[in-house]
């Protein structure tokens, strides 16, 4: 593990978006937690693939189909390696983290949950790891319980004992990193507890996988989901990893071509893993591009990315903390990734973001698809700045200057 430093200024040359100047300056793109920009390496590779290796996968015996299949299956192997999964048969391509989590909720949940069972999520889940479980719990009669957070946005694990008394805990679902607060959650501990209860552990790594080493075996989880578009890859694709024994037992989710072994008017049998869960023509070139994106960030190095973002978040928190009337949510910098959510007294986050945009600073304002967390924090929305490998200190300077303008405007 080499912890070479990362040269963000140099890496920015890979991203065409920074070539566009408004009033002489590129965008200060501080919304990478929502989605990341794409490097040339990924776009070039996808173009090349579309031009010289494109056909439908799996089905053809001709050269283009072979190339397409090799590209698509090669990407599966890259995802496997990226998260250290035992086998690439356990890697399923989905549209993104959301679909991956729905797949688990439907395919595993509908069959295995019932009255007397308990589904446990947390107060800081993204809606993608909250609503599907809430829905399936209602549908099956299972209870829906949540782990509360403390004032730093950290999970209160002492609530677990009480939760265990409510019934048979069957599912524990948690994000490894909170997209609103950046909190790094104790997923390993939860996995141990989940397994003690006889439950499965579902990890939403949408916000973690782009920024930190992921090892599904070390995490000890049963399922893990993440999206390509948050890790420099194209939109429209993501991955689900699941433990083979569980995937084997599960019903498929989407049905159609490719996931079928044989179909007759009266009976149908499923294809083997992972195809059983990949109905229809997949996002072929996008999966390929996802693989190239994983190569791109791996080559830069996840340790270097983590260190770079940590530096930025320390700076950002220090400087934001100096602005009167500004309140930062969540834990100290040591226990979070490169995400800072805050409120500016008396100014709605949408107004903050609008005025920042006039200064070329792109931040996100809203509930960040974490409404239960907003309720807990007692706000309707926050303003969020989030960093990635191409973020530079100047972006933070511009954020701070912009916020001072906002204050001035609303004074």
């Amino acid at each position, binding site marked *: 593990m080499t912890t070479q430093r990362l040269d963000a200024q140099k890496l920015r040359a890979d991203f065409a978006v920074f070539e566009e100047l408004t009033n002489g300056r590129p965008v200060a793109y501080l919304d990478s937690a929502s989605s990341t920009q794409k490097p040339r390496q990924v776009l070039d590779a996808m173009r090349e693939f579309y031009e010289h290796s494109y056909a439908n996968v799996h089905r053809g015996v001709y050269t283009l189909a072979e190339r397409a299949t090799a590209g698509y299956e090669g990407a599966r192997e890259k995802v496997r390696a990226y998260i250290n999964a035992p086998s690439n048969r356990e890697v399923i391509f989905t549209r993104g983290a959301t679909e991956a989590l729905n797949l688990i909720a439907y395919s595993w949940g509908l069959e295995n949950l019932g009255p007397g069972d308990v589904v446990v999520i947390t107060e800081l889940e993204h809606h993608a790891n909250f609503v599907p479980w809430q829905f399936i719990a209602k549908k099956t009669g299972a209870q829906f319980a949540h782990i509360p957070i403390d004032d730093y946005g950290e999970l209160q694990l002492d609530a677990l004992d009480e939760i265990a008394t409510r019934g048979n805990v069957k599912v524990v679902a948690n994000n490894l990193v909170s997209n609103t607060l950046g909190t790094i959650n104790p997923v390993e501990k939860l996995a141990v507890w989940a397994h003690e209860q006889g439950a499965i552990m579902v990890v939403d790594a949408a916000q973690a996988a782009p920024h930190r080493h992921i090892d599904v075996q070390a995490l000890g989880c049963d399922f893990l989901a993440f999206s390509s578009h948050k890790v420099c890859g194209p939109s429209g694709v993501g991955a689900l990893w699941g433990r083979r024994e569980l995937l084997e037992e599960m019903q498929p989710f989407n049905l159609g071509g490719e996931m079928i072994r044989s179909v007759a008017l009266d009976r149908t049998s499923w294809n083997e893993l992972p195809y059983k869960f990949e109905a229809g023509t997949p996002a072929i070139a996008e999966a390929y591009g996802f693989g190239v994106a994983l190569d791109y960030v791996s080559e830069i190095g996840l340790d270097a990315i983590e260190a770079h973002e940590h530096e930025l978040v320390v700076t950002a928190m220090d400087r934001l903390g100096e602005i009167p009337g500004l309140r930062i949510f969540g834990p100290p910098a040591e226990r979070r990734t490169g995400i800072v959510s805050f409120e500016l007294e008396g*100014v709605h986050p949408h107004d903050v973001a609008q005025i920042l945009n006039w200064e070329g600073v792109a931040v996100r304002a809203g*509930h960040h698809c974490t409404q239960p967390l907003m309720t807990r924090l007692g706000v309707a929305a926050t303003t969020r700045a989030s960093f990635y490998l191409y973020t530079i200190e100047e972006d933070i300077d511009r954020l701070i200057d912009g916020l001072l*303008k906002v204050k001035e*405007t*609303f004074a």
Partner: protein
Amino acid sequence: MSELEQMYREVILDHYKSPRGHGLHEHPDAQAEGQNPLCGDEVTITVKFGEDGETIDSIGFDGRGCAISQAATSMLTELVKGRKAADVAALPKEELLEEIGIPLTPIRLKCAILGLGVLKVALHKAKGTPLPPEWQNLGDDLHFD
């Protein structure tokens, strides 16, 4: 300070900081509430009609959210007072947007017209005035149980 910022300050912030028509009626003739799921802006509107039962005699609102949504609702109360329910039901959103004056992107547009939508729903519920489809889901609860 850019021209936009200038306008923002003068037009929007004035209404935002001193909203007209703020506060709800205790026994309204018409009432509705709505929210913008994108940003959590919320607006409740109450209306009292005049003796003809048609003319908006008094209109009040309560809400929370961004300056645009709250200022636009404040402007709206000035715009519709004294008008007939049927006319307001047919009021094109462009009329309100002209009042607001600053260019709005599609996303912020939703903030700006939230109050108008809520008012149309209130009139629809109380008077059966037509409600174009784009407003029909405001304030509905589409539950899964």
